[in-house]
C-alpha cells in the first residue's frame, strides 16, 4: 500500500507513504515542514556544517511525488524554509530545481512560524487557505474541523520502528514533516493527544503507509 485512503469533511483524501497528502478531486498535493535551507541556516549562525544536500534531497522527493500524482496545485503548509533568509540563501541549482517544480502548476505557500513572511519565489503566499470545505493552515486550531495542518512533525512507533506519521481523525489531519533534516514529536505527546479525538489514527510513512490506532 503506497497510501491510506480516508475522508475529511466528506472529501476523499490519500495519505501517501511518502508523507505528502493528495486530494484527487482537486488535483491538490499538500506537503508540510520542508525546512529547506536548514543546513545553511545552522552554518550562518556559526554552528556545525551539516552536509548541504537536504534541500536537493527534499526537492527530489517532492519531484517524485509530483510525477506520481500529476498534481496541478501544490500547497506547502508552512515552515517550507528554515527561516526568512533561507529562501534567499538557496544554491542556484536548488533554486532552479524548485522553479522547475513550480512551473505550470498552482503553488500556495502557507506561512509557518519559521517563515512567516512572503518569499520572492513566486506562487501565492497566504496565512491560510480554504477551499471546498477544507482549510489548510500551519498550526492546528482546537475546535476547528475540516482542517489540514503540519507544524508538529508527528512520529509513531510500530514493531520497534519509529517513523514520521499522519494523525487523522474526523475533524483534522496533521501531516508529518516532509523535509529531510527534520526530527519528530512522538504521537503520545500531550500536545498532540489534546488535539486528536479518541478514534484518531496514526498513518506511518516509509516503504508503505501503515495505519494504526493513534498511540496514546
Amino acid at each position, binding site marked *: 500500500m503506497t497510501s491510506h485512503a480516508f475522508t475529511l469533511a466528506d472529501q476523499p483524501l490519500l495519505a501517501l507513504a511518502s508523507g505528502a497528502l493528495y486530494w484527487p478531486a482537486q488535483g491538490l498535493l499538500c506537503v508540510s515542514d520542508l525546512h529547506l535551507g536548514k543546513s545553511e541556516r545552522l552554518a550562518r549562525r556559526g554552528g556545525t556544517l551539516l552536509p548541504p544536500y537536504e534541500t536537493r534531497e527534499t526537492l527530489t522527493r517532492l519531484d517524485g511525488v509530483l510525477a506520481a500524482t500529476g498534481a496541478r496545485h501544490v500547497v506547502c503548509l508552512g515552515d517550507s524554509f528554515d527561516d526568512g533568509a533561507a529562501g534567499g540563501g538557496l*544554491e542556484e541549482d536548488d533554486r532552479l530545481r524548485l522553479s522547475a517544480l513550480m512551473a505550470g502548476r498552482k503553488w500556495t505557500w502557507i506561512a509557518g512560524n519559521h517563515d512567516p513572511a512572503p518569499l520572492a519565489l513566486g506562487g501565492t503566499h497566504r496565512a491560510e487557505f480554504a477551499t471546498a470545505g477544507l482549510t489548510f493552515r500551519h498550526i492546528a486550531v482546537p475546535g476547528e474541523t475540516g482542517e489540514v495542518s503540519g507544524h508538529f512533525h508527528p512520529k509513531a512507533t510500530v*514493531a*520497534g520502528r519509529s517513523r514520521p506519521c499522519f494523525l487523522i481523525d474526523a475533524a483534522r489531519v496533521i501531516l508529518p514533516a516532509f523535509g529531510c533534516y527534520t526530527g519528530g514529536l512522538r504521537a503520545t505527546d500531550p500536545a498532540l493527544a489534546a488535539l486528536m479525538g479518541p478514534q484518531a489514527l496514526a498513518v506511518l510513512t516509509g*516503504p508503505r503507509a501503515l495505519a494504526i490506532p493513534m498511540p496514546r
Partner: protein
Amino acid sequence: MVALPPALSCWFAAKGWSLHPHQLAMLARAGDPATLLIAPTGGGKTLAGFLPTLAELADGRHRGLHTLYISPLKALTADIRRNLRAPVEGAGLPIRIGDRTGDTPYTQRRRQRADPPHILLTTPESLALLLSYEDAPRIFAGLQRVIVDEVHALAESKRGDQLMLCLSRLQALCPGLRRVGLSATVEDPPALARFLARNPDPCGILLADPGPEPDIAMLETDAPPPWSGGGGRHAIPAILAEVRRHRTTLIFHNTRAQAEIFFHALWMENEEALPIGIHHGSLAREQRERVEQAMAAGALRAVVCTGSLDLGIDWGDVDLVIQVGAPKNVKRLVQRIGRANHRYNAPSKALLVPANRFEVVECRAALEAAREHDLDGTPRGPGPRDVLCQHILLLACAGPVDADALYAEVISAGPYAGLSRPGFDACLEFAATGGYALRAYDRWQRLMRRGGLWQLRDPRAAQVIRMNLGTIIDTETLKVRLKNRGGGTPLGEVEEYFASTLTPGDTFLIGGQVVRYDGLREMTVEVTRQPGRDPKIAVFGGTKFATSTLLTQRIMRMFQQPSWPDLPAHTAAWLALQRKVSRLPEPDRLLVESFPCEGREHLCIYGFAGRNGQQTLGLLLTKRMEDEGLHPLGFVATDYATLIWGLDPVTDPGPLFDPSRLRDGLEGWLRGNAVMKRTFRNSAIIAGLIERTHPGRRKTGRQATFSSDVLYDTLLKYDPDHLMLQITREEALRGLVDFGRIEEMFARVQGRIDLLRLPRLSPLAAPMMLEMGRVPVEGAGRDRLMAETADRLMREAGLG
C-alpha cells in the same frame, strides 16, 4: 642524574623507607626526553614518576607550572594529590599541588589559570580544554615534565590519541618538555613507548621487578552457575565467606549494570551486615568520594566495582581480588589481579567467579593463559582522524593556526607519525568548510584563512566546540519508571537504542527485577513489574569487552577434549549434553544449528571469530538471507557465535555461506548497515559534525534533533567520498568489522559446514538468547512484521 634533596632523603629515612631500584633509575634518567616505566601495582610507580619533579622543585626557585600529571580517572588525581602531600609536607618542600578535573569548582579553575601550581594533576579532557584557551601559552610557560599515568589503558582508546595530540601541542609551547609514562604489564612495551614519545625521539623502557607470581584460582561454589546470563548471584554465599576471611576484597564486574544488580543481591544475603560499598563510573561524585574515603580509612570490607577501579587508585590493604564474570582478556585479568596486595613482594591473591557455564570454560582458559604469561593484545592502527578534526577545532579556539606548523606538530605524536599531508589537509578542510563536494559554505566557513592563518569565523563558536570536547561518547539513556505510582518509581536507565527496539508487552531485566514494557511517555520508559516471568531480553549497559583471539583459541582447544576433569562437574555435564544433542564446535569445521524458539526460527553459527567478526558475519548472513527470501529479523553476536532469528527456517547453508559471495557483499553492504551508522554517529560527534546531546537539556518538543542516520544516508547519496564516510569506513575496518577473522575461519573450515536441525534450543546456544546488543535487520521481514502488527492493532481497536 638528579640527586634526591636532603630534606626528602631524611624524611624517607625517618619513615624507614628505601627507594626501589626502578625509583632510583627514574632519577638517573630524569633528563631523558621520554621514559616508559612498567611496574606492578604497589611498586611505588607513581612516586618513581614524581621523584625527579620533587628533586627539581626542592630549591623553591621554579616559577609557574613544572609538572603536569595526567590520569585517565578523576578519582586518581584526588588520590595522587593525597599521596604526594605526605612527602611534600613531611619534607617541608616548597611545592604547590593542584588538581583539575571536570569536578573542580569554577572559581578554583579560574585561580589555576591565573596562577598555576607547580604540579597540576588532571585528565586528558581537562588538558584539552586548557589548551583551547587563548592564554594556554601563559598557563604552560615553564612546564618541564609531563607524567602520563596508566598509559597502557589510555593507549587503548581515542582518549590516548587525543592526549598524544595535546602533548604535541604542549611540546610546541614548551620545547624542552620531558615525558614519562607509567604502565602496568603490557604485551608489547616498544609499541607503547612509540605511542608515548615525541616522534622520532627515543624512549627508554624501564622494567621494574614484577614481584612474585600471583595466587589465582577459580572460586568453587556449592550452587552451579546458571545456564545463561551474567552477574554471579549464585556465588554470593561463597563470595561473602571469602570477604569474611579477608581484610579487604575488591569484587570486579565487567559492566556497571551487573555490578549494581550484584550489589543489590549481595546485600539481601549479607546477614552480618559486613560493610560493603559500590563504586562505578555512573555514580554521583559525592557517592564515589564517600566510598573512596571509607576505603582509604579501612572502614570497608569489600567494594563491588567495575573498570573504574581497574586503574591504580591506592586502596591500601586490599588482600583479595574477585573477578565476577569471565575476564575476556588475559592482560586485563593480570592487571586486575595486581590490585591485591600493594605491599611489594607479597603475592597477589585472586579468585575468578564464572557467571554462567560458558564462562566456566572461559575462566579456565584465562587462568591457564595467566599462569603461562601468555598476554593478549591487538596492535592499534594509526591515530583516528575524527580525533584530529576535533583537535584542529580545539586549537583554533586558542588562536590562529598555521597549517604547516600544525602538521609538523601532529606527526610528532606517536599515533599520527604516519599521517600523510593530504590526510591531514582533508581534516583541516573538514574543520574549515565541512569538506563537501558541493561548496555551499564559502560564506559561512567555520574556520577562515586570514593572513595565512586559520581562525574561527565566529569567535562565539568556541563555546560550542569546547562543550563538545572529548572522545568518550555517552550512550543516550532513558529513565525507566514503574507506571501508576504517583509519578512512578524510578528503576534506572536503559540505552535509548535499546528502548527503541521494545514493543509493549516485552519483558526485560532492570535493577534485578523483571518488568514489562508498557510504553514511552515524555522520554521515560514506563514499565510494570512482572515477577516470576522470564525476561525476554536482559539489559546490560556499559562497556562490552570482546574475548581475545588468544582466549577463544584456547576455548576451542578445550572443547576437543574427550572429557573435562579440570572443569566443575556441572560444566563438564553441560558440554557432554551439547555433544549428545548436537555437536561441539571443531576447529576445522563450521557448526551451524537451526531450531525454532519463542515462535521464531533461529540459526546459530559457531564461527569463533570474535565478537566483531561474528557481528560482521551476522550482518553479511542476514543480507544473504534477505536476498534468499528467508525474512531475517535480527541477530546477536558473541565472541564465539552468531544467533540469527527470522520468520523462515534455513535448510540449505550452501548458498548462504559461499565465502566469495559473502566477500562480494561486504563492500556494498558495509554502507547501509546499522553498525556503520552507529560508528558514523560516534565519529561525527568526535569530529564536530554533530553536537552532543546533553542529558537533561534534551528537547522533547518537535525541534528534537533528527537522527544522525539521516546525515549518513544523505552523505552516502550525495557525497560518498566525504571525509566522514572515509573515517567511518576506517573505524569499522579497524576492528568493528574484523572481516580478517571471518576469512581465517573460512580458510580453516574449507567448506566443511555442518547444518544441524534441532527440535529446540541447544545447550550451547542457550546463553545467546539473553545476549544484549541485538541488531535489527531492516528488510522485507521487518516490513511484513510491521504490517502484521499494524493490522492486529487495528483489529484489536475494532477499526480493521
